[in-house]
């Protein structure tokens, strides 16, 4: 990561209150929609949302899943997520502290999702994170993120080079297949945003 964990957490806690209003580009929305659609949880399934932020994906999946666990490093973001869950009367979602390489879950998870979060990790850290996710043994991992389809492109407006470190799709695909997943779908939302669907074979 380009800053320390604490610096990232603090930056997001400061952004939490306005985050949902600011984060609404068409690419972001399309990406979030595809992550939710590919996740497709069943009523008996437990979903883990890593880098849950204000809970956009977690709350969307809570309608269909049995249970949703949202994990993030930012207290501010988690507070905002809990507030939203209360507003919508969603009792099957739990938000707590957790990180990609240490998700802090002690129950089996069927699905892991993550949207617009893993790009804060370096490529080596992303690989470790994907291995940690594979160790949880979900039947599917849906990863939506800023990711380059045609080689690193610094011009993209969706990320900030000071704090972000997106990977190419190739790096993510290699890490996922090395961790034992099978890539069953790759959605090119735009040149710099994509969704990868990784299934347990």
């Amino acid at each position: 990561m380009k800053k320390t964990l604490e610096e990232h957490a603090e930056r997001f806690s400061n952004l939490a209150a306005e985050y949902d209003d600011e984060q609404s580009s068409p690419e972001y929305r399309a990406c979030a929609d595809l992550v939710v659609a590919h996740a497709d949880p069943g009523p008996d399934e437990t979903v883990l949302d890593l880098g849950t932020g204000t809970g956009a994906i977690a709350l969307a999946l809570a309608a269909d899943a049995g249970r949703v666990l949202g994990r993030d490093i930012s207290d501010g973001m988690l507070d905002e997520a809990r507030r939203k869950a209360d507003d919508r009367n969603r009792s099957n979602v739990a938000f707590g502290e957790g990180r990609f390489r240490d998700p802090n879950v002690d129950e089996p998870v069927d699905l892991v999702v993550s949207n617009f979060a893993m790009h804060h990790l370096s490529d080596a850290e992303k690989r470790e994170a994907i291995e940690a996710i594979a160790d949880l043994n979900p039947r599917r991992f849906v990863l939506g993120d800023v990711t380059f389809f045609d080689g690193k492109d610094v011009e993209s407006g969706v990320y900030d080079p000071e704090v972000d470190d997106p990977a190419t799709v190739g790096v993510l695909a290699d890490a996922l297949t090395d961790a034992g997943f099978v890539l069953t779908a790759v959605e090119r939302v735009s040149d710099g945003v994509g969704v990868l669907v990784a299934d347990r074979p």
Partner: protein
Amino acid sequence: MYEAVHAHPDGESTAARFARDAARMGFEGVVVRARGADPDYEALAAAPVDVVDAVEVVASGPEQASGTVGSVRPDHTLVCLRGGTDALNRFAVEHERVDVLTRPMAGGGGFNHVLARSAADNGVRVEFDFGPVLRSTGGPRVKALGRLRTLRELVAHYDAPYVVSANPTSHLHLRGPRELVAVGEEAGFAAEWVRAGLREWGVVAERNRERQSESFIGPGVERGRYEKDP
């Protein structure tokens, strides 16, 4: 290149959604192989790709198939008949009113030299369904790959016409041309062969539209220079 889709309520996504995602993936058009679906084709004329008015007839046997094909033929650009039994497969390849025989091997139905030859003679396209290769696993997938290989040998030997499709029932099942070619190559198909199969949907659609238009009188005959409108 086209993809042939199952739109709501036959599938989970609307024709408009399919059209939008297909455009993003680089397709020129989608064929809506409707059973219960009844899309508003006039509204879809504004879609980012060509949307073809088609029907996929699903019948229990040749008698029912014959009746249904006859009744839908005049109203739609493309008529597909779903195979899967020996009797239905034979009916399809023997009737040139049928444009495409879909899923010939799915239900345990067979395909053999006689059928391949009939398909070639009558211009009935045989569908190579990549759906099971993309969406199933284990034994069923291995079987599906084997059937595709058999079909390929027969179709190639008699130079029968064919189409390729992932048979998507949801926009999430759509795969772009490059991905279908890549999967096809892994399954033993040549890249250009797969692309030709994706283009063929558009070829049939264009031919049928021309035939059903007012300027077509019969093969080899054209409205033209000497006719004046009254």
